[in-house]
């Protein structure tokens, strides 16, 4: 023992009996607990922004999602027909590639009345197809069927097709698109009733109130 150099930091308590050590090391134990507490604090300060980053996508406000999208000239959608229209999602980002594109079914009910349905089945989101002869939308996944006005016809869906909010600005048809349409992220607001055939004058009056020429195709295309 005596040959070894003495460690300068050696404590007097080192030569004590275990009971004596236990009585003597309260200061180190206190400092250790303090250090643990300090790390817990630092850890929490570190973790909050990390969790914020991770949960960011879920924290977006509903009102910030979506924008008006131009589907093109009304003349592309003849009265009495239901046609497929493609658009670039206003939520598409730089890295979305072709998945940023989406389709929707446009049903021109009358001159000034249009219904626009999401292609996503209300059951599990598969793309529904329009069958003009039988006037049905059919889903390839589990056989959900919808009538021409989007209401549920048969199969597993518990509701009709999701509808986009629409607006007619001059000769152009606009829809409000944002979320992938699912049961809790609907394409359209809930209070909107099923569109019925109405006189064109009434519709025009209603549109005039909420006329907004500032419609753009996507947010990031400007």
């Amino acid at each position: 023992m005596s040959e070894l150099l003495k460690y300068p930091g050696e404590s007097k308590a080192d030569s004590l009996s275990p009971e004596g050590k236990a009585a003597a090391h309260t200061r180190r134990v206190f400092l250790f607990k303090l250090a643990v507490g300090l790390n817990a604090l630092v850890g929490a300060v570190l973790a909050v922004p990390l969790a914020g980053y991770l949960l960011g996508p879920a924290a977006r406000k509903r009102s910030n999602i979506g924008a008006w999208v131009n589907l093109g000239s009304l003349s592309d959608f003849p009265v009495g027909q239901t046609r497929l229209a493609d658009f670039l999602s206003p939520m598409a980002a730089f890295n979305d590639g072709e998945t940023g594109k989406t389709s929707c079914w446009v049903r021109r009910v009358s001159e000034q009345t249009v219904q626009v349905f999401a292609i996503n089945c209300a059951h599990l989101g598969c793309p529904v197809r329009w069958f003009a002869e039988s006037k049905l939308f059919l889903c390839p996944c589990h056989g959900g069927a919808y009538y021409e006005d989007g209401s549920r016809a048969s199969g597993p869906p518990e509701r009709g097709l999701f509808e986009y909010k629409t607006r007619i600005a001059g000769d152009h048809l606009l829809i409000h698109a944002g979320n992938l349409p699912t049961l809790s992220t609907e394409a359209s607001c809930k209070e909107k009733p099923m569109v019925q055939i109405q006189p064109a004058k009434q519709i025009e009056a209603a549109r005039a109130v909420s006329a907004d020429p500032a419609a753009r195709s996507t947010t990031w295309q400007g």
Partner: protein
Amino acid sequence: MAGLKIYNWIEHRLGLIQPLKEAAEHPTPSNNASWWYVFGSAATVLLMLQIVTGILLALVYSPSANEAWTSLNFLNHNIALGWYLRALHGWGSDFMIAIVLIHLVQVFLFGSFKFPRELTWMVGVVLLLLTLGMAFTGQVMRFDQDAYWGLGIGASISSRVPFVGAKLVHLLLGGSIIGGATLSRFFTLHVFVIPGLLLAGVAVHVLMVLRHGVSDWPMPGRLVRKSTYEREYHELTQRTGLPFVPDAAWKDAIFAAAILFSVMACAFFFGPFGPGGQPDPTIIQTAPHPDFAFLWIYAVLAFLPPSLETPVLLVAPVIAIAGMLLLPLLAGEGERHWARRPVAVLSVSVIAVTLGIFTRLGTYTPWSPVMDAWSGDAVPVKYMHNRTPLEREGAMVLQDKQCRDCHSLDGAGGLRGPALDSVAARMTEDQIVRQVLQGGGNMPAYGNALNPAETKALVSFLMTLRGNALEPAMDASRELLRQSRTATPVNPDAAVPGTAKAGEQK
């Protein structure tokens, strides 16, 4: 001599080789050196194969929505042996799920999850879920049409969660639509998060196997008791023990080699999985379906009534997983042998048959309309013979109105609705008219899609479809009414001829 010196130098510093050697040579009861005990090690070997092939694929794969699909086609066609690596990884995944499931069933039927191996089982259940997680996220990596719409199905299921549905969808997709952010987070899960958890879980699983020993072969009547089991196992090991390596492990090694060879053979002869069509959501001429391991879920989703769908989707998995996790706590003692556990054998049989049936249904989706049957499958010629012009017109209506998408004639057409070959033997004219116009029983109403002339023609054609000349269906109540009218004649003299005539009419 020099080799021994180097070994000693390393081992003195590392201190791992000797403990590993002892672990490998630990004595195990001779009765478990069996071909039934090879599945766990085979699953581990497949995990290693997946890690190696996965790392090699990551050299070329581009986890970006812009490029993922193209990079897979590039791997298939432009990179030497790229197709083979993709095939190995894909087939390795299918084999791994199969072997993990067989391992689970073997452990369950042998009662090996009982004391003191309860926690080993629970970790094993988590490993099964992680393996399925790898399979689902791996399907997304393919980033073709099936992957895109599969993500849509995942988002639709998440959206059914009460209150936080929308937030869950956004968290799952990494945004409000399926796109680059979605692929990135599934890539992160598939490549970093789940493999890390899998490796850690396998390490804990194997450590516990070493700690408690591989379970002995179950014997009817030899009960597991917490007070005696460990002493009995210890005595058995001392009496009959064999070194695990090599006396038991040679079977594991041969089986692992056979499995690897099978994966290689499947990869070589059957090739890689996809990628299918490009992930362009504007291409809607697609019938998405999931990979083999999830086909049964896809089938179950077709059969749930709308009102039950959300509760079943959200509650059933919780009950199933909790049941599997809690099993060893509820049945930690007692009989291990399958011959004395009829409920266990029955459960495995019922679950296996159920999963098998749903998977089989998932391969040909009888609930889906055949979208091109109306234009592709003509009315069989035999159903046009000896028909009036009106009836033939009705056959045209049947095709034009896309009835065939859901109804088959002579085996061709959809299976969603009943086959129409003998419809007139089941339903009267009135019933057919009502069914066509008003729908019901999973059939849409066609009142708005058919004008009266078309309805008349269609129904008159359908009335000719009576299978092999079966009797036409009749309305029993109307028949009774007619009989009762004719049976109470006003004029007794005219009664007999009148009845005969009434019976022949119509």
